[in-house]
């Protein structure tokens, strides 16, 4: 299932922060992780991923660092910062409230089965 891009745009930073909060990853890994961990429901366009990473880095929510991978190739690993964790917590709380609100509106129809 593909989401409306505007809807995804709003939650994409939270999703990226959440995935990175579980450990550092490079771009491709992150892209794969989002797909896999969302059960292929959430997919970020490739053209959206890297600008998003750079923007989060600019906001100092994540940190990029070049490292050698196992294949010997240099990769830029992204990890969440303290500031990013704070932001993630805030965003998650908001999402929770949003979900609760939506559940009330939709009479519990949005709650997981």
């Amino acid at each position, binding site marked *: 299932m593909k989401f409306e891009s505007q809807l995804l745009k709003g939650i994409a930073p939270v999703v990226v922060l959440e995935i990175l909060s579980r450990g550092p990853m490079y*771009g491709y890994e992150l892209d794969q992780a989002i797909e896999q961990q969302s059960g292929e429901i959430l997919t970020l366009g490739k053209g959206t991923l*890297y600008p998003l990473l750079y923007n989060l880095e*600019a906001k100092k929510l994540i940190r990029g660092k070049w490292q050698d991978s196992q294949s010997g190739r240099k990769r830029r690993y992204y990890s969440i910062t303290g500031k990013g964790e704070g932001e993630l917590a805030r965003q998650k709380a908001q999402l929770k409230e949003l979900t609760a609100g939506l559940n009330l509106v939709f009479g519990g129809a949005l709650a997981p089965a």
Partner: protein
Amino acid sequence: MATEHDKKESQNLPSSVTQYLDTLLKKMRYRRKVREDVRVELAAHFEDELKGCASDEEKRKKAKQLITEFGDVKLLAVLLRRAKRRCRPLWRTVVARTFQVTGILLLCFILYAIWFACGKPTMRVDYVALFNQMNQPQIRDQDNAWPRYEKAIGLYVPQSPVTKRLASYRQGGKERQDALWLKGLLRGNEQKAAEWLVQNQKHWDSLGPEKQVIVQKCLDYDWVPLPVFAYGTYTEWAATTFDRMAEYVLDCIREGAEIGDPHPRGALPRSVPPGFPNAELRSWLESRQIPADFVRAISVAVLREANRRYKDLPEDIGGPLSDVEQEYIGAWVKQNDAAWREFTAGSDKSYCYRPYTADPNGKERPLWSILLPPLSPFRDMARLGMWRSRIERQRGQIQESIEDCIAIARAGSHWQGKGTHVEQLVGLAIGGLARDEILRLVGEQELSASDLQNLQTRLSQIYPGGYPHINMEGEKLFFMDIVQRSFTDGGPGGGHLIPGQWEELTDLSGSYSDRADKRHLVPLYTALSMIHAGRDETIARGNELYDLQAKMAKMTPYRRDACDLKMPDEVLASIPKYRYFLIQTVLPASSRVSEIAYRGKMQHESALTVLALKRWRLEKDAYPQTLDELIAGGFLKELPLDPYSDKPLVYKKTDDNFILYSVGPNFKDDQGQVAMERGSQRRWGTAETGDIVLWPLSRIDK
């Protein structure tokens, strides 16, 4: 950041990916290092995505799909650039913004400078026509003196070099001092010189009549030809002046020394006036016709001529004419009879108006290139009148002498109170010449009461509207015309000074130089123009100064000094030079000019007073105790004003004469002591010492 391994891996990517990345990074337009990092990161992403493809064909297909997923290359490049820019540290952003702002400002400045430098003036007012309108009187053509003056100038025969030199000995200054020194040498060595002439006459005689005429011609031009001896023969001509040669010959005679080769002053002038025998002298060289004793021969001619010129030179400027003066100056006066008739006919007219025309050779015909009347020959004609008057006096033709003096005075008045400063100053100088001559006439001759009254009446009628102040209106128009031609019209400050006009302005200020050399100065001129005040501000400041000048012109030097007002010259000196360069360049030294006008007025009134005093003496056998008696007796209408005290001129009766003087520019009464400067008398005084003595002439005609 990309390692060799990375590069090798990147080479395995399909060409469509490489091209995509190349285009993306090119369009990203950001720092190379950042772009390289992005390339490595994205290339790694592609590699990871394509890793599982079994064949090249599959790889190509997958790559195509990935490229589609990455989306529009241009949009992605923009997004990446923006995101990377946000990652930039603050200091880098500040530096980048600073460079950007500086660049923009520089670009704006360059565009502004180009616009500034390309400014063009707008001609709205024909100031030449306005100037003519200002000066054109409402009179009939037959009352205009100019056509007669023009005719007189056309008929005027200039002085020969010797006449000019002889005349100059009567004008004071260094030339007169040198002439009197030679006269002293001639008188002191009279006997020895006579004997030397007898002994050396043979050398002169041996030249022969033809060469004697040529030599005499050279002396008439005030040059003494000296042959240069080299390689056993005469090879070239050198020259010295007549006075230096005469002094050299007299020194040799006085000291009993042999006449050798005097030190020449320089080469014989090649651009000589018509009539100078250059060709003849050259032919002597070519045909080797210069005798060995040529210098002694020419020394005889010089000594004889020196005797003629200087031996009877009067000690005082106003003394009777010597024979040689009568011979040369008298002949010149006679040659100019017709010119003088026209001049006097012109001087009888009520007004002199000559339309000003712009120089037809001038590109834009500005007011500053208007053609002034030929003032130099006009002034020479006034001097002709002065000599004429003297010669007539010596012949006993007193009435004619009086008429000539009046003619000069009237001609001078025609140039006063209007027109340009130059014309007004020439008018003042001619008027001064006339009144000096009238005073000499009165001093030398015992005029009858009727002659004195006639002279006084006619002199007083010269300025029916009162003695004119210096008129500043013409100069103000010059200023306005220069502003019109030097500034753009409109825009910030009403317009700006056009950089190209600096050449004209520096020429006006007297800094002449080769125009070709000034091209490299264009940036400097542009910068100076940017510093210069705008059109409105320049006009406002100029008007302020010209109005101040006009106000000052109506104040005597004494009042100016007493009221402690700043002179326009002082105001000008206190304002920034380059901000008001145009005003600094064109504003005349008005305080000096208007002071000269006040001196002219004083001279005029003093001449009337002297005539009244002479009349009083004829009637009462003695001079009055005070000038007030002249007023009370109806001999004089008003007391002569001293512009340096704002009181009447100082009058003191002496044994059989009187002294009439102004306290002079130091505003102090020095009891009639003539100002001295470097051991010489200064008739007009200086700021530090002395009075301006107007009578008796014996005090000043030294």
